[in-house]
C-alpha cells in the first residue's frame, strides 16, 4: 500500500480522502492543459520549420504527457463510480507506470513498485533478456517478448551454426494453453512449465517422452535426450533460481531512479553487472555441482584437466 512519508517516522497511513482531493486538483489542472497540448500537437503537425528528428521527439513527449493525464482520469473514474475502493487503486501522479505488486508478500498489504521479468540460462543464471512492462500484467504475458529478445540476440551471433532454444521452464503462473501452443509452434518444449502444484517428473519414461513429443508436435524437431534435459530443468527450477537472489543483492529490490525509464536503466545495469559476474564464475569454474553437470550435458563445460593422465614413462 502506498504510504506517505518515511516508515521510520511511525506507522504510515493511507489518506484516501487526501489522495482523492489531490487527484481532483490534478485533473482540474490537466483539463486546462489538455486543449493547449492538443493545439501544440496540431501546430507541430503543421508546417513548422523543424528537423524531422526533433519533430518526432517532441511529438513523442507531447503524446506521453497527454497519455499520463488520461491515465489519471481513467483511474479516477474507477474510484468514483460508486464501487468499493480497492486499496491498491490509488493514483500515483509522479510515476504513472508504477503498479501495486500483489506478489511476493503474503503477510502485509500490497506494495507499489514494478515487476521485472527475466529469462535466464538454467545452469549458470546468465540473464539473456529483461522485460519491464508498465503496470502489473499477468506473468504469461512476459514470455513471448522475452523469447523474442533472446532470439534477436541469437540472430546476431556470427557463427554459422546458431544456437536454438529447446525448452522453457517457469512457474505455475506461466501455465497458459495459448502460450504453450505458441511456444510449440516455435519449436520450444514446455514440459518445464507445471500444470498443477504437483512436482514435475525428473526422469520420464520412454512412453512419457513419446507422449510429450506427440503432444507438442515436435517429434522431428526435438530428440528424447532434449526432452529428458527439459524435464530435469523443470524439476530443478526452484533450486537454480538463485540468480534472482544475486540480482537482489545488487540492489534490484529497490529501484532508485525515477519513472519507468529510470527503472529500466536501473534494472538493465544491474542485470549487466550480474551477467559479467556470472561469466567470471563460469570462466573460473566456480559453479555448483548441479550447474557443472548440466553444463557438461549441454556440451559447454571443457574437459576436466585434473582427470587427464599423462603416461608415466
Amino acid at each position: 500500500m502506498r504510504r506517505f512519508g518515511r516508515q521510520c517516522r511511525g506507522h504510515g497511513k493511507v489518506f484516501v480522502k487526501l489522495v482523492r482531493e489531490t487527484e481532483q486538483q490534478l485533473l482540474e489542472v490537466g483539463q486546462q492543459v489538455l486543449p493547449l497540448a492538443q493545439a501544440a500537437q496540431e501546430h507541430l503537425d503543421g508546417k513548422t520549420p523543424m528537423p524531422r528528428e526533433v519533430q518526432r521527439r517532441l511529438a513523442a513527449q507531447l503524446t506521453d504527457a497527454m497519455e499520463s493525464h488520461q491515465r489519471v482520469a481513467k483511474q479516477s473514474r474507477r474510484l468514483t463510480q460508486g464501487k468499493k475502493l480497492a486499496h491498491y487503486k490509488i493514483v500515483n501522479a509522479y510515476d504513472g507506470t508504477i503498479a501495486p505488486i500483489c506478489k511476493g508478500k503474503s503477510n502485509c498489504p500490497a506494495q507499489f513498485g514494478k515487476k521485472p521479468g527475466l529469462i535466464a540460462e538454467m545452469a549458470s543464471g546468465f540473464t539473456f533478456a529483461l522485460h519491464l512492462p508498465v503496470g502489473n500484467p499477468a506473468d504469461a504475458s512476459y514470455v513471448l517478448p522475452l523469447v523474442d529478445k533472446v532470439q534477436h540476440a541469437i540472430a546476431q551471433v556470427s557463427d554459422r551454426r546458431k544456437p536454438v532454444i529447446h525448452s522453457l521452464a517457469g512457474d505455475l503462473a506461466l501455465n497458459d494453453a495459448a502460450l504453450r501452443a505458441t511456444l510449440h509452434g516455435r519449436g520450444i518444449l514446455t514440459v518445464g512449465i507445471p500444470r498443477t502444484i504437483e512436482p514435475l517428473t525428473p526422469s520420464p519414461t520412454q512412453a512419457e517422452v513419446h507422449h510429450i513429443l506427440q503432444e507438442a508436435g515436435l517429434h522431428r524437431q526435438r530428440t528424447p535426450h532434449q526432452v529428458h534435459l527439459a524435464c530435469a530443468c523443470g524439476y530443478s527450477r526452484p533450486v537454480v533460481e538463485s540468480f534472482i537472489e544475486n540480482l537482489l543483492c545488487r540492489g534490484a529490490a529497490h529501484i532508485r531512479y525515477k519513472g519507468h525509464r529510470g527503472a529500466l536503466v536501473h534494472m538493465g545495469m544491474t542485470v549487466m553487472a550480474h551477467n559479467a559476474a556470472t561469466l567470471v564464475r563460469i570462466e573460473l569454474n566456480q559453479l555448483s555441482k548441479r550447474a557443472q553437470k548440466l553444463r557438461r550435458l549441454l556440451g559447454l563445460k571443457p574437459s576436466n584437466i585434473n582427470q587427464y593422465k599423462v603416461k608415466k614413462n
Partner: protein
Amino acid sequence: MRLLRHLQHWLTGRGPQICVGDFVPEAHPLRQWADTFPWAALVAAVDRSVAQRFPTKTTRGRAPIATRVLLALELLKHELSCSDEQICSRLRTDLAVMYACGITEVQVERVQGHFVLPEVLAQFRGRLDEVLMEELLSLQATAALEAGLVSPAHLVVDTFPSEQGSQRVNDAATLYKAKKKSSRSSRTSLPRARRRPRR
C-alpha cells in the same frame, strides 16, 4: 555551454606516470569482471544512439568524457552498490576502478580532486533509454554466446517484485547542487580577479 562539456576534467598532471594495467593484478575481481564486457560494441551502440537522439550542432568546446568511462562507472555503481559520488570518488583513487573504466595510464596530480563529477554521470544516465538498454543487454548476450560460455537451449522465465526505493540524493538534487556550487565558485573568483593587478 553544455554541462557535459563544461565539467570535463583531464587525466593529466605533472607527477609520475602510472601504468594502470601493470598495477592491477590479473586475479583482481574487478579486472576479471571488466574483461568480460564487449566494450567496443557497447560503446559504439551508446554513441550511435546518443548521436541520433541528441545531435551536436558544433564541434567547439572541450572534448566530452569518453563514453567508455561513463558506461563503466554506471555499471560499477551497480556492481559495487555505490552512489554516484562514491563511485566518482573511487575512480580518483582506486586503480582497479580506473582499469575497469578503460583508463590505461594516469599522471599523478595531488591537487586534482576528481576525474569525473557525479553530475556528469547523472546527465549521461539521463540519455539512456529503453531501446538502448535492450540493445546493450542483447550485445552482452551475443558476446557470451559467441564465446561459447552460455547456451540458450534450456531457459527459465521468472518475475520478481521490486519496490520503488527511496532516493536520498536524486539526479535533480545533484544537478541543483552543481549549479549552486558553480555560482558560488564564480562569486568567489570574481573579487580575486578584481584584486589581481593589471599588467
